[in-house]
């Protein structure tokens, strides 16, 4: 299959991209393309037949990685492979680097972008779960100017986000890990690089040897990535260890009602999400202890 015909736009600035989108009779007739690694398959299979494609690849200045105190900002057009190999990202937000290693394959990550993966909002994908786990903030530009959206408000349905049809995601801001922080991303997939049947991003902050804060996001178990709020609440103030992690695993599984599909049954996903929470918390805690 080949893409259906579309009107092609190649703006060279975000302002121009927004102007193109807001100038259309219906911005819903357009798809914004970044790296294209999620959109191109949909176009090739004609599952998506937009009348307009607004290609951001010629937009400059949207690929930078910058650190400002306690915030690491990654431009939406930053290729996943670039972020994965960045010493700045590894030092500030190591969870991003670990999760990127599980996104598709190197040939995909050479084209795929940080912003594209998050804006596409596949609930089985790694980066939306990471953004949700870390409370990342999405920077969006539209006709009314720039606004930031918290990850907790960003993912609002299957392949659906809080972005308006005439808005462009320009950057993602991640909070930088401080002392006592540790994180881990683990998943179960049939083949390295495939969409996982379930995945877990976990982030803990230790004070002494007590969990001051834990954040857990689960992928592949709903229409959006899901925060395991019950498990998080149970971990607050707890001593890290098998008992606390088993309780968090049970609380996570109990709160989930994943669908059955060709890849895995709902019951399997529900079970494996708990197992992955336990593993992720163990690794995250070990890393937090080494980061004091």
């Amino acid at each position, binding site marked *: 299959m080949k893409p259906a015909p579309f009107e092609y736009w190649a703006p060279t600035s975000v302002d121009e991209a927004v102007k193109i989108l807001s100038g259309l009779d219906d911005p819903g007739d357009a798809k914004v393309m970044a790296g294209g690694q999620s959109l191109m398959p949909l176009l090739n299979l004609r599952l998506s037949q937009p009348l307009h494609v607004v290609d951001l690849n010629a937009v400059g200045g949207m690929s930078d990685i910058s650190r400002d105190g306690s915030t690491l900002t990654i431009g939406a057009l930053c290729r996943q492979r670039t972020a994965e190999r960045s010493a700045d990202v590894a030092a500030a937000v190591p969870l991003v680097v670990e999760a990127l290693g599980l996104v*598709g394959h190197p040939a995909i990550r050479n084209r795929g972008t940080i912003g594209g993966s998050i804006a596409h909002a596949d609930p089985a994908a790694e980066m939306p779960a990471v953004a949700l786990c870390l409370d990342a903030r999405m920077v969006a530009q539209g006709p009314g100017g720039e606004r930031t959206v918290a990850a907790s408000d960003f993912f609002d349905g299957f392949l659906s986000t809080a972005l308006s049809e005439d808005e462009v995601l320009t950057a993602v801001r991640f909070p930088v890990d401080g002392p006592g922080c540790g994180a881990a991303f683990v998943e179960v997939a049939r083949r390295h690089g495939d969409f996982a049947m379930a995945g877990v991003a976990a982030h803990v902050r230790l004070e002494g040897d007590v969990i001051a804060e834990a954040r857990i996001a689960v992928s592949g178990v709903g229409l959006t990535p899901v925060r395991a709020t019950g498990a998080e609440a149970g971990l607050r103030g707890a001593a890290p260890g098998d008992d606390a992690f088993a309780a968090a695993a049970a609380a996570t599984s109990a709160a989930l009602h994943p669908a059955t599909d060709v890849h895995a049954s709902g019951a399997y996903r529900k079970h494996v999400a708990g197992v992955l929470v336990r593993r992720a918390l163990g690794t995250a805690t070990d890393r937090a202890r080494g980061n004091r």
Partner: protein
Amino acid sequence: MSHREITVTVNGAVRTATVEPRRTLADFLRQDLGLTATHLGCEHGVCGACTVLLDGDTVRSCLALAVHADGHEVTTVEGIAEPGEMHPVQSALWESGAFQCGFCTPGFVMTIYGLEQDARAGRPCPRSRTEIREELSGNICRCSGYQAIVDGAEAALTAATATATTTTEGAR
């Protein structure tokens, strides 16, 4: 849908063409330039048969538009050795008998070639068979000839790493 004129350096030669924006890079190479060794299997980024290098990085040419290559450099499997000769990656795969029907071979060659370029330049590249399998997991062989493909990749990468070591030592 308005056509666009693009200029792409393919295997070292500057090529100009007029393409529809919906033209994939793979179809541009195969149909507009007649470089049919880049194969199309799934056309949605799963099988890896269409792997080429874009500015030195491996990419799936079915998941890029031809217009994305405008002003850039593309290397296909036709361009890694002189006509009638084999690149060391191809020789290593040949020695290992790393093909059955051969359909997936160009994609595997280009993926391994990308790794081999890293090895020659002294950049990190997979060493163990486990790491090699992980790097090759984006390429599917429906004859399931992976054992011999991993053998060939391992031989090619070991040789390239030795070359890099020798070069580095020679520079000291």
